[in-house]
């Protein structure tokens, strides 16, 4: 049985990967962690997983209002980044589209 909790703060959201979510992730990943002693709460596997998920906190700290950020246009210097506005800005900027041919990203697979 998986008894483990991961506290992750991303985008001002405290998210908990608890037993149920981890089970769901394993289900959607078609993996059985408890088959290989990986579900132990003190296991190296889960501690490393926790460490990786904590990495995402850095994205939460994306502060584009940095004074050294002089190369970016003013759209990127709001106190709080509005990503919808950012996407809109980028998609409407002809110069951007011509300068950087972004590649198509794969379709997101939704899992519940």
């Amino acid at each position: 049985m998986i008894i483990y909790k991961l506290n992750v703060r991303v985008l001002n959201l405290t998210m908990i990967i608890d037993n149920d979510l981890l089970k769901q992730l394993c289900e959607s990943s078609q993996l059985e962690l408890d088959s290989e002693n990986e579900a132990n709460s003190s296991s190296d596997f889960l501690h490393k997983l926790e460490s990786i998920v904590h990495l995402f906190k850095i994205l939460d700290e994306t502060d584009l209002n940095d004074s050294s950020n002089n190369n970016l246009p003013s759209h990127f210097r709001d106190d709080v980044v509005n990503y919808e506005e950012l996407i809109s800005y980028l998609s409407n900027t002809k110069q951007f589209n011509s300068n950087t041919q972004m590649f198509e990203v794969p379709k997101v697979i939704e899992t519940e």
Partner: protein
Amino acid sequence: MSFYTLPEQIKLLKKKDISSRELTQIYIDQINKYNQSINALISFDADKVLAQADQADKIIANNESTSLTGIPIVHKDNLCTKDFMTTAGSRILKDFVPPYNAHVVQQTINAGMISIGKASCDEFAMGSTNETSYFGRVLNPYCFKHVPGGSSGGSGAAVAANFAPLATGSDTGGSVRQPASFCNLTGLKPTYGLVSRFGLIAFASSLDQVGPMARSAFDCAHLMDVISGYDPKDSTSSKHKKISFVKTINQMSPKKLTIGIPRQLDDIKFDSSVMKSFENTINTFKQLGHEIKSINLNTLKYAVPAYYVIAPAEAASNLSRYNGSLYGHRAESNTLDEMYKKTRSQGFGNEVKRRILVGNFVLSKGFQGQYYEKALNVKTLFAHEFSNLFEDIDFIITPTTSSKPLTFNHFSDPVKLYETDALTIPANLVGLPAVSFQGGFDGDLPIGIQLIGRKYSDPELLSAVHHFQQHTDFHLQQPKMK
């Protein structure tokens, strides 16, 4: 003989002063002598290799050869090879022999090259030390107590140990450049789309790119002439006009370059020997007449977290095909669903499992906007910032990694290891070309320096490194194999 340079070997073969069989046999002897200890090659069959060499000798005798006909090459084991097992370093693909060749492999065969063996790699190219391969760790030929880097660590170790003069690698976040740095090689991650990914076992499709590893930029240029170009079988393959890398290097007279150093390097903790080599390299570029200026790369600190959202997300999708029903390992079970789970649980190593879980986590309904889309936005910011930077400069220079080659099991926290990729990841996020080349040593341990260029500046990048290598001798150093 193994220690002749690639241009010397090409010349000897062309003049028929040596046959491909004789040349190949020298490399086979080296493999027989050292592969058991270094473990760079997973697959190697001397009889098959010599049969290829005999075929190459016939082509040479008929004066139908290309410049690399008869030259041996090692392919990373995530490139499909019809005649060799292809495992991607994973138990789940143990004993898998593909029914076709990857485009890159086929191009080398068409050029008359000798596929001498398949190189070990981190499992599904996920790792920076070659410690996650199911087939055991690979040792760095420069010092057996240190890793060769990863994920193309087997390719790097193989060239460094003189198992072949050339190797292919794949680079998703630095997997060609970092092992090139650790094994005293030159390694190029080409512009995304310049080299076909057809037959490359996918890790993160929007970031993966196949690239050459060799002792010098000139050697890499020879291989790029063979493997680059449009391939209709890869939907992301670029139709950019094919340019001869070797001709570019031969014809281009050194021009004054403007090279930018990101101020944000000050925020990274480097080994002192790495920083010393970096400073020496900058001084050499200055002496060669190039201008060095400080630049801002403000997005640098977001590279690692953005990468570790995007890459696992794509990996979780790409690796969903491995379930025992199509190929590779298959676990015994009573139901189909149970077979899938058991196969994957037994077949994948822990690092791969972690990344699949993280990938499905960031793509989960309700969270994909918070994680995946935000990471894509960071990727877009990178593209914008690089685009602005390359209006004023030709290349960006950084150390390839923050440290000299690591010892085994150096980090218990995987994030610490991930952070060592901070300087190589940006080029993948934006699809830019980047090259790692030899910048010095810390004792016996090699140190690499990286140049990043604008899209399709790959030949100019190799030209700049070639010019540097005309005035330095780090790339000529050989391992003492101890």
